[in-house]
């Protein structure tokens, strides 16, 4: 709170009006200053949009195509326990994550474009943009899928979310483990192998008639999902510490 008596007393000091010619001189001199808009720093939002340009067109095409195809297959499938709808929901996550992983692995490969991209900006920032972008897009996909299935197929929304998200998180966890532990150029091959294996496991469960989508297995799905999520968070943290070099190690420690 301002003390009014004190303010009144302080306001006894009168500030003389400035010289107009000096004010005009300031404007003239200011206009003569050579500006360098090209040196302007980008804000975080501008940086984000700028980075989107570096994501390959084929990644966008592949992601759109896969999303539309999966949604089409899901919505045209009949809603019965014996059919493939839940298997499709479960496979959707690893498939989409695999496309993301391929794009993310590209910045770990020392190509010319990637060197240019990370020479000016920190590797961590470049990585965050990709995580956020793909995360948001996949979130939209899962939301559309969950809402669509719950409305058109008259099923509980939590089932769609659980069966869709858990394999996605498991896939993310695996990819993060690979990114943190493998240095070779075959890193994308490893993630692809992991994705295919995960899809195969889901398909085998369906073919061998394991009724993993029954309500009785709900708690198991949930537990696996939580473990995978915690694992993913730890691995992502490790990855960011590694990508930031000494600075991140000082800020966050090297205990992980």
């Amino acid at each position: 709170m301002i003390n009014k008596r004190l303010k009144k007393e302080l306001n006894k000091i009168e500030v003389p009006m400035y010289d107009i010619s000096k004010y005009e001189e300031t404007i003239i001199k200011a206009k003569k200053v050579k500006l360098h808009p090209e040196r302007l720093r980008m804000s975080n939002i501008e940086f984000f949009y700028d980075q989107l340009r570096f994501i390959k067109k084929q990644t966008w095409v592949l992601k759109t195509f896969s999303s539309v195809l999966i949604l089409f297959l899901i919505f045209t499938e009949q809603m019965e326990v014996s059919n493939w709808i839940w298997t499709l929901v479960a496979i959707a996550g690893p498939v989409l994550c695999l496309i993301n992983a391929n794009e993310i692995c590209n910045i770990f490969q020392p190509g010319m474009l990637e060197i240019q991209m990370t020479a000016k900006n920190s590797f961590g920032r470049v990585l965050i943009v990709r995580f956020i972008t793909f995360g948001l897009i996949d979130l939209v996909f899962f939301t559309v899928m969950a809402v669509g299935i719950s409305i058109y197929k008259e099923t509980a929304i939590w089932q769609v979310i659980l069966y869709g998200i858990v394999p996605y998180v498991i896939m993310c966890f695996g990819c993060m483990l690979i990114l943190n532990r493998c240095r070779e150029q075959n890193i994308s091959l490893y993630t692809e192998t992991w994705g295919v294996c995960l899809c195969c496991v889901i398909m085998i469960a369906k073919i061998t008639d394991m009724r993993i989508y029954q309500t009785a297995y709900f708690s198991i799905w949930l537990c696996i999902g939580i473990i995978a999520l915690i694992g993913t968070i730890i691995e992502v943290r490790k990855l960011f510490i590694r990508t930031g070099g000494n600075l991140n190690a000082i800020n966050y420690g090297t205990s992980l």
Partner: protein
Amino acid sequence: MFENKQWKKIAIDKDKIDALIQENYMSIYKYCFYHVHSRDVAQDITQDVFLKFIKEIERYREYGKLKNYLYVIARNSIRDYARKIKEVDLETDFETEKYDDGGIDKKIDQLSVWEALNSLEELEKEILILRYYQDFIIKEISEIMGMPASTIRYKLKNAEKTLKSRLEL
């Protein structure tokens, strides 16, 4: 007008410079005047503040409000000036300034406030000027000074207490 990151437009469009100076000239000039007690010097420093800001605009990075950033530059410019001129003779300044035509009583009043203000520690004086003359809130002052809000609050209380006793309020 120039809040919400519109400062970037200044770096691209020179016509925005007019508006920037017009909008902030008076407040920066007043701020400088309260520190240096001389119209000419305050004007010179004000000019310097705007020129420095425009020259360095591309380096500007998320400093909260643009106005706060101008005050940071002004504060540094005043410090530079103070380093050059170690002692400013307050009374001589008052006698030589042509603008002061308020009569002897008014002049004595002003002098006593100046003296009370100058008796404060440099940091307390700075905080008091920003709070009482420039009407900044504590959070904004802490951004300008680069200090925690709690420290600003504590220093402000001290300054108020000292001033009250000096001015016999």
